């Protein structure tokens, strides 16, 4: 029997029933590997459902640090859902390991010859050990984690430590959980040749890192960035941004003297009102944000147009999910690039930022408030479900205590006294950004009407053509200023020799797969440079990257190549020069997919004839 052999490089896939508490047990498994110093990437593939549907949880461990979804099938399956047994069996790589609950024998027709079966009578053990039906269910999960510890050589002390941390404050739960781990561990040790040929070994590759989900990091960014008002409406996968913000704010934003809160989070009746709350607060001089996903973006579009035209600085966090419409609410994509870049009717453009890991969620999340206030316009942080809701290995978060918030061009009462005549829309500095005042600043000067209608330099309503043109052209000038101060694209170059220069543009969560793809291609002798876009409007370096390469691929996670369209539209690139690499089945893009697409293209016809599409696992 063929057996996959690997130390510290493999994929474990858990198949569970949702609502049974499996995700926290599976996270404990991933975190145990992380605490053994291993880079690890857990991904929850959950349904839009509360209880009873199939759910999967995949953990990739990679000492080499490849943490995108690997694809191609797992090395080990923990099959705990009888509904999906056949499918889970099929998913396994030849020579892989199939851990299942052997209380009930497997149906012979689903059993493959080329995989290794590991049957553990988990239900039977639970029936024997526990009286309470809820415990029988919950401890099943802990028992298989205990068994995996023996099978994969996970340090048992590490698992015990995790249980202790998890139940801090509920100490009486610690012993039963450790006992359940031991039940699994003991059964596996006695009945199988442990460890298996796939196993883990302590490493130092992830020692300095943290393991955190993007939404928590984004929330901390907003907290450190000085956000005080949040309007929100729950929607997967963005809800936890606001929930984390409130969780930390309840601890860290309390006035020590009065015990009162230095923030206000208003749960609104819908997304329209959620962004309205943020806009009203921003108008009144507070740093304000909202978080949503695709369907919320559609609803917020009206207000985004107002905030663009009335020049109000809000931060909008879009944790993208697969659309259109309700789409696949619990699957990831990058499908809102165009909807956000040009949100609302009329000539509008919005500032976008694309974090690719939790640290960047934190940093760009905080910086977004500075940029919004500097530019007096909405800034949209484009995260996605994979980044937002899954735990990722990340460099620790850091904050420079010397940081001062850039509140932008705001005149206070003394400054207003020095101004002869205040003009809200006078471009004094020539950068398209005018001076604003907060309501209530000065008894006689600086008051004006904020509106979504056309107005002159002094905020007086006007439908005169030249006044309108002057205003919208200035907004364009402001956008040019934005392109200069936004985070630059990250460019990496390889050694090309005399060959034709190939480039790969990507952004957000495609980065981790793209970096691995470049390594895969390099191993095959194909040098590829990369350009990771971090913001829109694009800086000069993006146009330069395209110009410097003979062929440029644009890898992203949507059907229509939305970033490619944006590049073509904004940089006036010949469409033939940009080859789309598109993955959009709702699971994160993989390095294999990108490298195969690029390789196939390189071997085949020149750029113009092929449009590389079709997402496959």
């Amino acid at each position: 029997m063929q057996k996959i052999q690997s130390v510290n490089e493999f994929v474990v896939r858990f198949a569970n029933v949702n609502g049974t508490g499996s995700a926290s047990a599976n996270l404990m498994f991933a975190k145990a590997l992380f605490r053994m110093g291993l880079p690890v990437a857990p991904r929850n593939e959950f349904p839009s459902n509360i209880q009873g549907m199939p759910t999967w949880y995949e953990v990739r461990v990679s000492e080499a640090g490849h943490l995108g979804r690997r694809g191609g099938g797992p090395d080990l399956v923990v099959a705990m859902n009888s509904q999906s047994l056949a499918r889970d069996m099929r998913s396994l790589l030849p020579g892989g390991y199939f851990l299942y609950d052997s209380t009930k024998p497997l149906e012979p027709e689903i059993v493959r010859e080329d995989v290794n079966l590991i049957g553990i009578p988990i239900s039977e053990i639970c029936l024997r050990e526990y009286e309470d039906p809820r415990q029988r269910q919950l401890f099943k999960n802990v028992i298989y984690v205990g068994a995996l510890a023996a099978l994969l050589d996970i340090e048992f002390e590490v698992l015990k430590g995790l249980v202790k941390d998890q139940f801090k404050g509920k100490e009486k739960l610690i012993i039963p959980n450790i006992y359940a781990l031991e039940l699994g561990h003991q059964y596996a040790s006695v009945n199988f040749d442990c460890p298996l040929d796939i196993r883990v070994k302590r490493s130092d590759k992830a020692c300095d890192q943290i393991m955190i989900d993007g939404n928590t990091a984004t929330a901390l960014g907003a907290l450190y960035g000085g956000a005080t008002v949040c309007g929100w409406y729950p929607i997967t996968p963005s809800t936890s941004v606001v929930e984390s913000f409130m969780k930390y704010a309840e601890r860290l934003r309390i006035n020590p003297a009065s015990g009162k809160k230095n923030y206000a989070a208003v749960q609104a009746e819908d997304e329209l009102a959620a962004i309205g709350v943020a806009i009203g607060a921003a108008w009144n001089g507070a740093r304000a944000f909202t978080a949503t996903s695709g369907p919320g973006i559609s609803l917020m579009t009206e207000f985004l147009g107002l905030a663009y035209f009335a020049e109000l600085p809000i931060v909008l966090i879009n944790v993208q999910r697969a659309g259109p419409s309700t789409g696949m609410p619990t699957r990831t994509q990058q499908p809102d690039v165009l909807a956000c870049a040009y949100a609302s009717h009329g000539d509008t453009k919005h500032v976008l930022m694309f974090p690719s890991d939790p640290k960047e969620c934190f940093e760009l999340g905080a910086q977004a408030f500075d940029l919004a206030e500097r530019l007096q316009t909405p800034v949209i942080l484009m995260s996605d479900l994979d980044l937002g809701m899954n735990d990722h290995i990340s460099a620790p978060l850091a904050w420079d205590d010397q940081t001062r918030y850039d509140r932008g061009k705001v005149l206070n009462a003394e400054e207003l006294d020095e101004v002869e005549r205040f003009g809200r829309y006078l471009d004094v500095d020539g950068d398209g950004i005018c001076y604003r005042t907060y309501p209530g600043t000065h008894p006689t000067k600086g008051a004006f009407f904020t509106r979504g209608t056309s107005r002159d330099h002094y905020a007086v309503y006007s439908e005169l053509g030249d006044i309108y043109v002057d205003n919208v052209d200035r907004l364009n000038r402001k956008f040019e200023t934005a392109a200069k101060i936004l985070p630059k694209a990250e460019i990496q170059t390889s050694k090309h020799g005399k060959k034709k220069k190939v480039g790969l543009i990507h952004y957000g969560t495609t980065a981790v797969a793209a970096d691995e793809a470049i390594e895969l291609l390099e191993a095959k002798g194909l040098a590829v440079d990369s350009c990771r876009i971090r913001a829109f409007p694009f800086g000069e370096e993006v146009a330069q990257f395209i110009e410097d390469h003979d062929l440029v691929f644009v890898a992203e996670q949507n059907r229509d190549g939305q970033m490619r369209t944006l590049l073509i539209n904004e940089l006036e690139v010949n469409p033939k020069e940009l080859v789309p690499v598109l993955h959009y089945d709702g699971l994160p893009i993989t390095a294999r997919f990108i490298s195969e697409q690029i390789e196939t293209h390189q071997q085949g016809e020149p750029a113009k004839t092929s449009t590389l599409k079709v997402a496959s696992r």
Partner: protein
Amino acid sequence: MSYQKSSFRHPRLPVNDLGLTQQAYEGPLSTLCAGCGHDSIGAAIIQACHELSLPPHRIAKLSGIGCSSKAPTYFLNKAHGFNSVHGRMPSIVTGANMANKELTYIGMSGDGDTAAIGMGQFAHVVRRRLNMLYLVANNGVYGLTKGQTSATADRGSKSKKGEDNLLEGIDLATMAIQLGATFVARSFSGDKNELVPLLKAALSHRGFAFIDIISPCVTFNNHPGSTKSYDYVRDHIETASVSDFVPVKEEITSACPVGVTCRDICLHDGSIIRLQQTGDDYDPQNRAEAISAVEHHKAKGEILTGLLYVDPFAEDLHEVLETSDTPLNQLNEQALCPGNDVLQVINDSFR
């Protein structure tokens, strides 16, 4: 109609406690139709704010879209204004109020802006008990788009083209009472004597104050057969109680007129609303009675005006959310940013 607003004022106009004449509360010349009820509302707001000695620049006036929402341009030009999008003023003012609890918020809306496109936002700003004054200039018709029937038009009211409105009209005042507004009144733009004291009381009320002001549209809804015309409203108005507003600094000196029952309601700041009961004697601090009185008069074809309901001691949203005493927009890095040491502890919780 003139095109320039005269800046001439009587040299000895009365000044208020801030030393300001009423002129300091005015705005530029209105572009609404001559005789528009909304301009009378604007004039009443100017008078009320002046008499209350509110610093004009410490008021924020917010609106949606429509004739009513244009109206704030024409009063309080020392105050910041925000003319937002159709039906969305409630969320904007919620955010604004959260950012700075020290300003006085006046939301000016209309029947289309509130009872149709903005119904959802209206309902929720009421139940949020935002500390603000929400005014609806209610004329039962869409003016800017030239005469379509609105959701507050009474069933059977005739449009200018002579068509009967076949659908039920929405009563925003009773809705507001049901949804938890803590100050609800109805008035008529043509009755300044009633409107000004109501505005003063509403502006002094802490919490959500709502006044539904019937404000006839002279251009599209002032014809025979309309139930929102000047003539119809004057003929069918029934006053719940004549209110007088006594600011906190003044003592009540005037005795209640002989033969009239007076009810004094003390607001949280110590000012008093004195109600002279007329006709039905119901308790404006009882929600069920208030709704019942409105319905009772409606069944008789009457429009009940005056203070309908007040709960002077209810919590507002800032109290519910326990926000800091310092307005949130005045907090700096020191109050807002927990710093790197704390962040390192947070990092440790993710190891």
